[in-house]
């Protein structure tokens, strides 16, 4: 990893202050009314979890499809950037950018839920892990989509499905199969951390979220030589099978 893509993504983000501000303010438009309302903590925590995961999945998938459509992904790969490096550095910069943009919303959410400092720290760690996983999910979505509209649809469906599997909308009965699946799902930790901020539930175990944070990039790296050319539309410079 050279850091070239990471550096470029940050540079692009900083050159677009309006977009950056919108990405801070729009989540707040949802978070603030819920935080100041009498919404039950369980419902509020679910909405915040959906907001954070959807924000990151869309934010990863849609710009990637747009750059694939303009030919920029193909150009970067043909110029010599390796597919795995390109995708992982995009995800890493995207997750950190999302974290910065969503931090005010998390602060508002935790304030609304009555969180103390320790619970906020756990929620922040869970948020970073969730955003990392959601950005990686966004890359998979982008590789499956052919248009921005398809990417938006696939991002919404896959993120909501994984949130459901993570027990955000309805928790499975203790000991049941669905409860065991929920315990191993990638967005379980952020939901539990938000519930914990409200004083409900145990402090979340971040082990599973950490495991996803390692497994998902490993999967992405394994698939990168397939995903890269798919996004690029043409084989990258070092693609296997090129006739020399």
């Amino acid at each position: 990893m050279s850091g070239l893509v990471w550096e470029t993504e940050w540079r692009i983000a900083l050159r677009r202050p309006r977009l950056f501000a919108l990405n801070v303010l729009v989540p707040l438009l949802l978070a603030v009314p819920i935080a100041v309302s009498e919404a039950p903590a369980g419902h509020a925590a679910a909405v915040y979890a959906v907001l954070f995961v959807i924000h990151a999945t869309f934010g990863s998938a849609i710009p990637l499809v747009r750059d694939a459509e303009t030919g920029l992904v193909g150009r970067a790969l043909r110029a010599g950037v390796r597919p795995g490096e390109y995708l992982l550095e995009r995800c890493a910069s995207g997750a950190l950018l999302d974290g910065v943009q969503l931090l005010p919303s998390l602060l508002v959410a935790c304030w609304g839920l009555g969180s103390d400092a320790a619970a906020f720290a756990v929620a922040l760690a869970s948020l970073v892990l969730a955003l990392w996983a959601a950005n990686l999910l966004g890359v998979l979505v982008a590789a499956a989509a052919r248009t921005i509209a398809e990417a938006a649809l696939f991002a919404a469906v896959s993120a909501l499905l994984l949130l459901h599997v993570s027990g955000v909308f309805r928790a499975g009965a203790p000991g049941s199969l669905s409860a065991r699946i929920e315990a191993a799902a990638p967005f379980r930790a952020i939901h539990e951390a938000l519930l914990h901020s409200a004083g409900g539930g145990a402090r979340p175990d971040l082990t599973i979220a950490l495991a996803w944070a390692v497994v998902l990039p490993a999967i992405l790296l394994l698939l990168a030589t397939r995903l890269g050319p798919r996004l690029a539309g043409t084989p990258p410079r070092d693609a296997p099978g090129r006739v020399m």
Partner: protein
Amino acid sequence: MLRAIGVSYSYGSSPNGVHDADLAVAKGEVIGLVGPNGAGKSTLLRLLDGQMEPQTGRVERPPPRTAEGRVDYGFTAEETPHFESLSGLHNALFFARAAGLDRTAATEAVERLFERLALSEHAALPVAEYSFGARRKLALVEAMAHDPSLLLLDEPTLGLDAESRTRLAALLAERAHAGTGIVLSSHDAAFVEEVAHHVVFIVRGRTRRGGRPDELIEALDGAVNLIFNLSGPLRSPPEPRGPDWTVIDDGNPIVVRAERGQAALPEVSRALLSAGADIREVHVREPGLGDAFRRIMGEELGPPPRGES
């Protein structure tokens, strides 16, 4: 260093594409690909670059990277996407570093090329604010900054002003002298004549006989272009051709290719006068690569319809 042997690539039922094309470029050689729109020049360049694999035939390419890991190809397409919100300098640095240069070497190489192609004053501007010509120069910088041993340039003079075109010709000559193999496609026959060591004509996707530009021009056997400037419009369209001359542009000026040189001048003048031409002045232009290409095209496609050059 690069060789295409009988390569073909078709786009479904479209007649466009490349059919059984052969091409070879040696170290330090500049090959000019000349052909009309849709002849297959861009497709052939993409096949050479490996962006597409031929459906039949094969391309023998050098390894994509040097032993040090630097990308050894440079490519510009007619349309080159950029990071629009970033400056030209940051775009060029991205592609130079992607190709394997470290930050210092990339900065030095990019700044040198910005200077050479007169792009320095635009370096800090976002690409979104670039003119078409500035974008084209930026794409050329990006293709060359990592000093590849093979350069594939699609219409490199498109959008360039005369000064930039001269600068580019000098830059390509230097690169070739240093051993870079260059294949460029262009509609700009004068530019190809200036920089190419060998010209390959491509017509309807098939590579046709080529040669050194001076040989191709000599093969025209004394043919010249007669250029008639008129004081006003013609009363009726001129005769499209005579026994040894052909009207290749019937606008004002009228351009006539005379196969046996100036000897055709009286006859052509008479033909134009009878069409009502008020001839103000006549120039005789020595033939160039464009004329050699028109002859090839004429042989391939038959005489042009009336009014078409």
